[in-house]
């Protein structure tokens, strides 16, 4: 049951987040809009002059765009899996951070698919995917999977913010314009918190939490299959499905830690998001780091040990031209969180957040190394005197659009936090249930 007093107290505390926009935030938003504007200009350049303005050519036909696609989609699945799992297990420490995970799921899911659109040569024919769609094509699987995922995540997010929207509607002290109040009252769907409503909402949220976990796994596997169904050395791998899912949740967990760190600082949530939460998420990250390292090792070990000629040349490229990105993404990106969270002394909020940044960058490069070197080492050797056709390097257009995507992500996150608090007020005002003592103890001993 919700505790009315606690809720009022929390709402009063978070009200300024929704009521006021500081000048610093305003500058931040303007800056983000500026970056997005740069991206729009880059996009117009690409549309008017053709894909020749990108670094992509006939050998490396997919570049940074597809890397960002994988990356953003990965963040989304992480958000879905983390929030879904924490919800289903009724993990007590989820309450202040689960909203951020839900936002992460939906916001990155709205941006990710945009990057695959940037790879498409004829956007004017995009509707052909629906008109002439062929179910044999993994792209069609992806279209179906991603649109299902968007719906699933939107419903899940809506269900989990419904109670907070109703609380905001009923919270008379909130000083916001009437039109915003109106939005809350429409979106609250007449929820008043009767026991029947509460029970229904809980059941629906549970179902959707289960669904988004399942959908997320399917969608990310489908994304992996886009690569592994081809015959390209380096992609034609059976473990790509689970490998991508693990890598996704790993990178997304790191993004979530950064989100926690930023919102904690900006909205002064030190009382609610404590070291305990960082350590808990850190432990999740470490488990995923180990799994990710294991999958990476398995994939490259088998390619290297009994190597075919083309695997051999791919491994050679990875250990020569791409030496540092390779070491960084697949060694440092795994070991840093293991050390930081593994050694109790190093387990501070700052350290965990810093290692999360390392993980994010490492995982971005991990995807880059999956996509680009493979395309640079096809079965028939690339024989081309034009360096830009033999080797890929991103152009300003691609980087501008990458920056615009990150900016849009930050902007939507900022705006979302201005609409409904980044913390689940309703859940936080519930009195903790008595949990199964063993689990509780295990958790406590870790933290």
């Amino acid at each position, binding site marked *: 049951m919700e505790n009315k007093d606690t809720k009022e107290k929390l709402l009063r505390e978070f009200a300024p987040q929704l009521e006021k926009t500081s000048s610093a935030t305003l500058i931040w938003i303007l800056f983000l809009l500026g970056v997005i504007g740069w991206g729009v200009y880059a996009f117009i350049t690409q549309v008017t002059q053709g*894909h020749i303005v990108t670094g992509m050519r006939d050998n490396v036909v997919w570049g940074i765009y597809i890397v960002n696609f994988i990356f953003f989609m990965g963040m989304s699945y992480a958000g879905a899996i983390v929030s879904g799992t924490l919800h289903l297990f009724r993990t007590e420490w989820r309450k202040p951070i689960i909203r951020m995970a839900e936002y992460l799921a939906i916001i990155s899911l709205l941006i990710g698919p945009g990057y695959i659109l940037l790879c498409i*040569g004829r956007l004017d024919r995009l509707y*052909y995917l629906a*008109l002439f769609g062929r179910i044999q094509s993994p792209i069609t699987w992806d279209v179906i999977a991603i649109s299902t995922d968007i719906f699933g995540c939107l419903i899940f997010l809506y269900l989990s913010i419904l109670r907070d929207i109703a609380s905001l509607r009923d919270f008379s002290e909130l000083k916001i314009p009437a039109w915003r109040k109106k939005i809350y009252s429409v979106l609250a769907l007449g929820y008043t918190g009767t026991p029947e409503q509460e029970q229904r909402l809980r059941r629906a949220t549970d179902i959707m939490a289960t669904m988004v976990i399942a959908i997320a796994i399917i969608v990310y596997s489908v994304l992996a299959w886009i690569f592994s169904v081809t015959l390209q050395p380096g*992609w034609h791998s059976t473990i790509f499905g689970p490998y991508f899912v693990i890598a996704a949740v790993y990178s997304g967990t790191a993004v979530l830690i950064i989100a926690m760190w930023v919102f904690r600082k900006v909205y002064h949530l030190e009382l609610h998001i404590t070291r305990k939460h960082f350590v808990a998420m850190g432990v999740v990250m470490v488990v995923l780091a180990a799994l990710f390292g294991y999958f990476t090792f398995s994939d490259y070990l088998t390619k290297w040990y009994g190597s075919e000629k083309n695997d051999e040349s791919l491994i050679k490229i990875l250990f020569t031209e791409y030496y540092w990105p390779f070491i960084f993404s697949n060694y440092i990106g795994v070991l840093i969180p293991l050390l930081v969270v593994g050694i109790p002394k190093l387990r501070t909020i700052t350290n965990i957040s810093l290692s999360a940044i390392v993980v994010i960058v490492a995982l971005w490069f991990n995807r880059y190394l999956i996509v680009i070197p493979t395309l640079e080492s096809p*079965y*028939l050797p690339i024989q081309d*005197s034009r360096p830009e056709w033999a080797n890929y390097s991103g152009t300003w257009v691609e980087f501008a659009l990458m920056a615009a995507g990150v900016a849009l992500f930050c902007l939507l996150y900022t705006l979302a936090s201005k609409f409904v608090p980044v913390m689940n007020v309703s859940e936080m005002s519930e009195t903790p249930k008595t949990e199964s003592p063993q689990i509780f103890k295990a958790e406590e001993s870790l933290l």
Partner: protein
Amino acid sequence: MSVEDTNDNKKNSRRQFLKNGLIAGAGVVAGGSLLASYVDKSVPASGEKVKVLTTEGELVEVDKAQIHSPRVSIKESHNGIPGRKFVMVIDLAKCKNARKCVESCQKGHHLPKSQEFMKVYLLQDSEKSAPYWFPKPCFHCDNPLCVSVCPVGATFKRSDGIVLIDNERCIGCKFCMTGCPYSTRVFAWKDYPEFAEDKEPYSPEASSPGKEGTVAKCDFCPDLVRIGKLPYCAQNCPMGVIYFGDIDEDTVTNGSETLRFSELIRDRSGYRYLEVLGTRPSVYYLPPVERQFPVERGFNDLEESVKNRFKTTPYGKTHKL
């Protein structure tokens, strides 16, 4: 319709039989078209006459050089030429990298220099094995991954074995390009001026005019085959490296010599490139044994930019190209 219908007053040599067999095939598909659209008077007459069958069932004699194929519509291009299964045999022993296949193909398909449907590689299978020139068209696989992965059916496999692309349908996702293990497909990264040189309506059989933001590739020139001509590459190879024909008819020709496909493959140990991938190509290679030219001949009269392509190959490194 038997081949005799079109050839009754020709000497019935095997070669003639085969060459005109292609024309006979064209007559079937052209059903409904007027003969007039098959003759292009602007082309100088060669004097060599062939007989073709009109839709009314009449035999008409026309000049061979003036036969011109009106491009079939996109819809029609989905149907293969009935009763045919095309095959190509490339004799590596004769290739000297003259690049006439590449150039004539680019001219015929109105391609920019940066788009090569036919590519000539300098391959060397291992360190101690001998380098050789390797012309590579599209393999028109019988198990084409490019066709499987296309989300909109823009690339398709026909009954005659040819894999074509409809660039009016293609959305430019490039999935087929990563699907193809032979790096066969090219993308129109911009609107190349060469595309506009072609004033005729687009047909997938001609792969021209090209279109920005779509994928293209070697098409086995079915528009030429319909009028009894060989693909550009086979027509223009000075060495007769490229044989084209019908696997069911068991014949291939390079324009000057016509051979039994099965005997050629048997006697010369023909093989398909990267058979291990299971794509089942329609292109066979004859190994570079008893070569007519040393591999160095391939560097004669090469443009600098083309020559530079081979600098990073094992051969190029050891010979300081």
